[in-house]
C-alpha cells in the first residue's frame, strides 16, 4: 500500500529526469525545480502536508520504469509518453497528462527546408531509448523516405552535434526543441518545422495495481488543472477557501464535502497541492511559459475552455 508507505516514510520518492531544462533539473544547491518537479511537490503537499518532503530520484531513460516497478519511486514524473505498451506490458499506470507534446524537427534556417517532407536523405540526431526513436522510424517509413539517424545519449550531446552541423535536423519533443533553441546564441537562425509527427502525451505514472495511490496522483493533477479553470491561484486560495460561493471550488478546497477522505487524505489536500507551486497555469508559466527562457506557448495545453486539451474531471 503505497499511501501508507509514503506516510510512514514521511517522504515521497519521486522519479525525475537527471536534468532537462524547464522540466526537472537540480540547481547548484541541489534544489530541484521544473514543470515535472511541481507535480512531485503537489503530491507531497497533498499526502504529507509539506511540498519539500520529496526525495528526487534522478532516472535515465533506461532506469526510469524499473525504478517505478521495483518500488524505488512512488511516482514517476519524468516527461514520459503515455503509450499502450507502457501502460499494459510494462505494468505501469499513467494517471493523466500534464503536458501534451508532439515530436518535431528543428533545422537551420539556411538549410532552406520548410517541411519535414523535404528531409529525404537527411541526417537526424535523436536520443536513444525514447519513443521518439520509434516515431521517427515510423514516420520516414510511412513517407517512404530515407534518413541517417545519429543516435545520441543525452540532450546536451544532441545540441552539440546539431550546433556543429553534424546533423541536419534535431528531433525530439517540441517542448525540448523550443528549450534548446532558446539557449542558442542565435535562435533566430533555427526554425522548428511545422510537422508534429507524433502524439506525446507526457504524464506522471504509478505502479500498476495500487489504484488508490493512482487516484491520489491523478486527482492531485486534476486539482491543479481544475484550480486554473476555476481561477484558484496560490495568491487567492486562502481567500477563496473562506469566501468562494462556487460549490465546485468549495468541494475542491475542502470547505464543503470531505472529498479527501475518499482517497485516504484529509479535507484540505487539494488546497495544499495547489499552494505547493500554484495551479497548473502558474506552474506552466513559472517553468516553461512564454516569460521563461524556454518560452513555450500554451497551445494544446491551454484549458479546454481556451481551446486547449486540459480538462479536469469534475470534483464531485
Amino acid at each position, binding site marked *: 500500500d503505497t499511501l501508507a508507505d509514503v506516510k510512514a516514510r514521511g517522504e515521497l520518492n519521486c522519479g525525475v529526469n537527471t536534468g532537462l531544462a524547464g522540466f526537472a533539473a537540480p540547481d547548484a544547491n541541489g534544489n530541484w525545480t521544473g514543470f515535472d518537479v511541481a507535480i512531485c511537490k503537489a503530491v507531497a503537499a497533498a499526502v504529507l502536508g509539506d511540498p519539500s518532503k520529496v526525495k528526487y530520484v534522478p532516472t535515465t*531513460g*533506461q532506469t526510469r*520504469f*524499473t525504478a517505478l*516497478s521495483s518500488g524505488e519511486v512512488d511516482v514517476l514524473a519524468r516527461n514520459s509518453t503515455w503509450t499502450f*505498451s*507502457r501502460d499494459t*506490458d*510494462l*505494468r505501469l499506470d499513467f494517471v493523466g497528462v500534464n503536458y501534451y507534446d508532439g515530436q518535431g524537427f528543428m533545422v537551420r534556417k539556411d538549410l532552406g527546408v520548410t517541411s519535414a517532407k523535404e*528531409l*529525404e*536523405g*537527411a*541526417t537526424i540526431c535523436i536520443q*536513444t*531509448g*525514447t519513443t521518439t*526513436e*520509434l516515431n*521517427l*522510424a*515510423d514516420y520516414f*517509413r510511412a513517407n517512404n523516405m530515407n*534518413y*541517417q*539517424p*545519429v*543516435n*545520441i*545519449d543525452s540532450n546536451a*550531446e544532441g545540441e*552539440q*552535434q546539431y550546433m*556543429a*552541423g*553534424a*546533423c*541536419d535536423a534535431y528531433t525530439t519533443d517540441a517542448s525540448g526543441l523550443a528549450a534548446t533553441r532558446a539557449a542558442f546564441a542565435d535562435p533566430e537562425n533555427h526554425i522548428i518545422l511545422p510537422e508534429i509527427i507524433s502524439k506525446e502525451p507526457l504524464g506522471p505514472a504509478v505502479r*500498476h*495495481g495500487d489504484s488508490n495511490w493512482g487516484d491520489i496522483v491523478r486527482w492531485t493533477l486534476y486539482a491543479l488543472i481544475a484550480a486554473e479553470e476555476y481561477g484558484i491561484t496560490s495568491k487567492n486560495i486562502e481567500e477563496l477557501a473562506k469566501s468562494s460561493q462556487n460549490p465546485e471550488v468549495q468541494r475542491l478546497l475542502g470547505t464543503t464535502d470531505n472529498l479527501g477522505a475518499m482517497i485516504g487524505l484529509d479535507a484540505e489536500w487539494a488546497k495544499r497541492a495547489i499552494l505547493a507551486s500554484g495551479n497548473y497555469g502558474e506552474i506552466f508559466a513559472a517553468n516553461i511559459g512564454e516569460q521563461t527562457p524556454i518560452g513555450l506557448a500554451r497551445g494544446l495545453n491551454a484549458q479546454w475552455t481556451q481551446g486547449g486539451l486540459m480538462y479536469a474531471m469534475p470534483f464531485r
Partner: protein
Amino acid sequence: MADVSAPAEPPFRLSMLIYDRRYRSMTFQVIVFILVMAAAWWLVNNTIRNLAVLGKDFNFGFLFQRAGYDIPQTPIPYTSDDTHLRATIVGLLNTLIVSILGCIAATVLGVAVGVARLSNNWLFARLMTVFVEAFRNMPLLLWILIIYAIFTEILPPPNAYRGEDATASMIFFDNVALTNRYTAIPTLAMTNDPGSLDLGARITFNWATIAFVVVLVGGWFVRRAILAWAQRVQDATGLRPRTWVMNLAVMTVPSLFLIFWFGLHLEAPELRGFNFTGGINVQNGLVALWLALTLYTAAFIAEIVRAGILAVSKGQTEAAFALGLRPRRTMKLVILPQALRVIIPPLISQYLNLTKNSSLAIAVGYMDLRGTLGGTTLNQTGRELEAIVLMMAIYWALSMIISAGMNIFNARVKLKER
C-alpha cells in the same frame, strides 16, 4: 621402547571430520558449498517471487517481436521492421567490428609507442611518455566524448563540400570526404559482377569477396610453404634464399588478376542532397569510439611492450652481439621471442578490456550490443532481466573465447625451467 607394530587404521570417529586433515577439508568444502548454494537459491527464489509480484515472466519471446527502431550502421541488412533478435545480432557485430579494429590498431600503435619510449631520441621519448600518461590517467569515457566532440567541431559538415566556393575538399584524389558526421569512403564496384551467395536471412556474400578471401587464405598457406622451403634450403646450404619477392607475389599477383577479372574499381562518394551517397559513410561514432579505444588501450599496451622488452636482460643483447649477430637479427631471434612471452598475456587481457570497454559506445551513439540489446531493446520492451542476462552472457562468452586463446598460447610458449 615404544611398541611399534604394523599400523592399524584408527576407526572412524565423528570428531575426525574436524580434526583429521583428510576429512577436514571435505567438511569445510561441503559447508561452504552448501552456504553458497543456499545463497544462490535464495537469489533465484527471490527473483521468482519478485517476477510473480510484478506479474512478469522470464521469457525471451520479445526477441522475436518487431524492433521498430533504426540503427545507423548495420553490417548486415536491417530495417526497423526486423526483430529485436536481428537488432541484437547487428549490435553484436558492431561490437565485434569496433573491438577487432581496435585491437589491431591498438597493437600497432602500442608497439610503436612502446618502442618509441625506449628510443634514444629524447624529445620523442618524452612526447610518447606524455601521450601514455595522459591516456592512462584520465577516464576512457572522457576520451571518447572529447574525441567525438573534436570530430564534430573540427571537421566540416557535408554541405561545406557543396558548390563553387566549397570550403572543404575531398582527399585521396577526391575519393574520401571527411565530415563531421561520417567519413565518406568509396565503395568497390565491379563491372563484371559475379553475383552473390545467399546465406538466407538476407545475409549475402559477393562471390568476388569469397574469391578474394580464398586467394588471401591460400596465399597465406603458400607463404608458409615458401618459408618452410627457405628454411630447408638454409639448413642444407647455410644460405637463406631471399623470399620477400615471392612472398609479395603470392598475395599480389592473384589479387591483381581478380581485380582485373572482376573489373574492380572505386566508386567515389558524391554529395547528393544532404549527404554523400554512393560510397560508404563510416559513422563518426564508430571512428571516434575506435580511435578512443585505440589510443587508450595503446597507452597500456605501450607500457606492456616496454616492460616486456626491458624484461629481456641487457645480457641477452650483449651475448648476441658478442656472437656477431646484427641488431636486427638479434631483435628477431633473441629479443622478440623472449619479450613476447612476457608481453602476450597482459596484451590479451588488454584485448579483453578493450572489448568490454567498447560497451561505452552509447556515449557516441554507436549502436553496439549494449546500445541495441542492452539499450533500446531493453527500453522499448521493458525486459530488463532477460536483456541484461543475455547481454552479460554474450560478453562473457566473448571474454572466454579470448582468454581460452591466451591459455593455449601461453601453454605453447612457456619457458622450460628446472
